[in-house]
């Protein structure tokens, strides 16, 4: 019982992002009961769910980096799409100039693009951490200029990446029943989980985001940590760019990952993270990213008129954000408690810890006695 309680407390912050996702899935299910149906096409799983996982790959990866940047720097990186466009342009140039394309060329090109992503991250990170520029302002520079840089790297055209390995990365590897971008997303998430498990990244980032002065007096260098999150963001951008360009089969510096930072920021917010930094939940952001993908597809599934699709999306997002807001969250908890007290008399005891957290959340001025 008590173990269960601990588990529940630890994951309770995911309750709302998940409920939002479930609501959307239910809408889809009502529209057609075959929503979750999965078939095999050419030896690969096919259906709405694989499509969602495939389509959201880049957004999921970017929202992980955005979560970290948001948590530590208490602001957002708006140049992630441009950063992805630049690093993937370098990847494409490397592959096109390598002559014969083998898995090693692709890998080397990918690593090179990661380095490029990190350099971009270092540039943004230096501005934010060492020159104290607001993250949005610092990253505005590349947001505005990044695509021109990618365009020049591309040699002022849209180079074609028509080789079989790229195609397999963008679609599927024969004999593997899951599309490659989905596998790579999972691999990336696992890597991030390992990093979080084997380092103090979470503790440091949260400490810096909540209270940089206190973090500094405990031996953490807030500048380094903020810088580090931008480096990680750079890698995320490079990976997302890599996936996007292999999916597309050509490098379109103008449109590749365009405006994706909007969705990435939204994913972070939907995941229950504060955009003002501090404690973060990467799991929440990942759920948020998939939620956005599901939302986009839900609008299509409901056959919303193309002219109205933006308005519908806005309305949906407002509703989702309200559902995920702390106010509604606290209210939901209260209702839940009341329901419990009605069902069992002494349940107050069991949920004590949770409720106190709610009390302190609903009334933060109550902390000082």
């Amino acid at each position: 019982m008590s173990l269960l309680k601990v588990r529940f407390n630890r994951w309770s912050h995911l309750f709302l992002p998940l409920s939002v996702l479930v609501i959307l899935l239910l809408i889809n299910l009502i529209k057609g009961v075959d929503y979750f149906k999965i078939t095999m096409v050419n030896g690969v799983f096919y259906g709405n769910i694989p499509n969602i996982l495939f389509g959201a790959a880049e957004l999921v990866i970017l929202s992980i980096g955005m979560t970290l940047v948001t948590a530590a720097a208490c602001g957002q990186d708006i140049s992630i799409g441009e950063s992805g466009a630049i690093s993937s342009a370098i990847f494409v140039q490397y592959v096109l100039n390598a002559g014969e394309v083998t898995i090693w060329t692709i890998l080397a090109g990918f690593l090179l693009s990661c380095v490029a992503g990190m350099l971009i991250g270092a540039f943004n990170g230096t501005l934010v951490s060492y020159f104290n520029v607001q993250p949005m302002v610092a990253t505005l520079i590349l947001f505005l200029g990044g695509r021109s840089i990618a365009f020049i790297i591309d040699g002022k055209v849209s180079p074609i990446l028509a080789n079989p390995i790229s195609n397999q990365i963008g679609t599927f590897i024969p004999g593997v029943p899951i599309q490659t971008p989905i596998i790579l997303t999972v691999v990336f998430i696992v890597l991030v989980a390992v990093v979080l498990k084997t380092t103090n990244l979470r503790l440091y980032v949260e400490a810096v985001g909540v209270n940089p002065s206190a973090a500094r007096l405990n031996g953490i260098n807030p500048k380094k940590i903020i810088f580090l999150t931008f480096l990680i963001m750079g890698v995320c951008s490079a990976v997302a760019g890599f996936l996007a360009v292999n999916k597309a089969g050509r490098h379109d510096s103008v449109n590749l990952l365009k405006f994706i930072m909007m969705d990435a920021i939204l994913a972070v917010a939907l995941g229950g993270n504060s955009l003002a930094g501090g404690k973060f939940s990467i799991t929440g952001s990942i759920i948020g990213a998939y939620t956005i993908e599901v939302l986009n597809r839900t609008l299509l599934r409901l056959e919303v008129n193309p002219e109205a699709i933006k308005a519908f999306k806005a309305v949906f997002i407002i509703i989702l954000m309200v559902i995920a807001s702390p106010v509604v969250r606290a209210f939901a908890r209260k209702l839940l408690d009341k329901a419990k007290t009605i069902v069992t008399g002494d349940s107050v005891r069991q949920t004590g810890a949770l409720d106190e957290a709610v009390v302190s959340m609903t009334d933060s001025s109550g902390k000082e006695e």
Partner: protein
Amino acid sequence: MRSEIILRMEGISKSFPGVRALHNVDFVLRRGEIHALMGENGAGKSTLIKILNGVYEKDAGRIILEGRPVHFKSPQDAQNMGIGTVFQEIALCPNLTVADNMFIGRSRDAVVRWKQMNEKTAEMLNSLGIPASPTQELASCSLAVQQMIAIARAVDMDCKILILDEPTSSLDEDETKKLFALMRELKSRGVGIIFITHFIDEVYEISDTITVLRNGELIGEYETAALSQIELISKMMGKALSDVAAIKKHELSQSDASVPVFAAKDLSSTAGVRPFDFTIHEGEVNGFAGLLGSGRSESVRAFFAADKVTSGEVKIKGKRAKIRTPLDAMKQGIGYLPEDRKAEGIIGELSVRDNIILALQVMKGFFKPLSRKQAEEFANQYIQLLGIKTPSIDTPIKSLSGGNQQKVILARWLLTHPMYLILDEPTRGIDVGTKVEIQKLILKLAEDGMSLTFISSEIDEMLRVCSRLIVMKDREIVGELRGANLTEQNVMHMIAQGG
């Protein structure tokens, strides 16, 4: 003497799920009375106040205001009925003018009448003797004046009852005097004032009546003049008188000839302290005395490289050490509990567990995280050791009371097993019981061989704990006291004569 009752709270009870905050508490306030509400952390003072000003709804009981039962649904309700509250943190806008702050959110007209507003403000400030001009920017006023303006604002909203929640905690002595003058003025106008503070001297200086709460229950209402300080403390703590006075400091036997644990020479930092020397030996507890702004905090911050060190050299156990960052200092076995708990101590949103293990974790390094189990063990161990009151180790530290937050920070440093621990105002803003506990803890640690520097604005506290006091004035050390010379008189003298 006793005048007409304006407020009567009867049988007030309030529970939060799992916690009984108030149980059957009565409280009475009279016209023109300054009524101190006393109690340790968790006694229920804040809950009672928040029920009175409409933040919380009571579970049971009655509130009778000027003979009529009332029921507040919101803070706005309470305000409209004439109950004004001024909190510890000033809730005004520093970048607006004084007059703006007096009237913000109150004007019902879309158009603001600047001239009228300024005139009215000037009149108000004048009548209350507040030294500020209506057109001055609020941030340019001292904290005390800002506090007074917050009070004036509350009073101006036709208030009959004024609640002051720790209004003096960030004021110095002079400023406190000014605030008290204002309180007396309001008292003479018939305003009933409820006053919450941790400074017992203040209670005796200003209040007429004291109500003591403990663990959510009413202990009693007393006339201030009839209750001795030591009685008050024992009522708040629920302990016998002998316990409170029982702190005995252990006198240092070592001579200065032994190698000091920490020695600094010609140390100075960007915080602007003149280069100074300092040593501390094993098992020694010393302190820096001086008025606010004398440089006592800035000095100890330099030991920890909390500010950028600009000159000087440091020796740890006789060996030269380079301390450029707090991490360097931590690795040399130095711990530092900062003066400003909220701004520099706690990581508010993080759990009690994370706050406890933070310093140890950082010393271990980025790539060596403690396992969850280890972290929980450490946290639980220190929660028990220091008697930290928290619903769970996962509770965010910001929802603990001030005293418990401070204990968490102490736990954080104790967990690193420092050789030398610097405690800057560890007892500020926390209740008497915890203060005594912390003092005892300091002496216990010293007995076990730890060296400590202890700073407090309450001199008697330092006299009780420290075997040596370094006296500062105007960012310079003006002298040192030890042994029999260690008296309040001597400290005052030294400050008065020095410099």
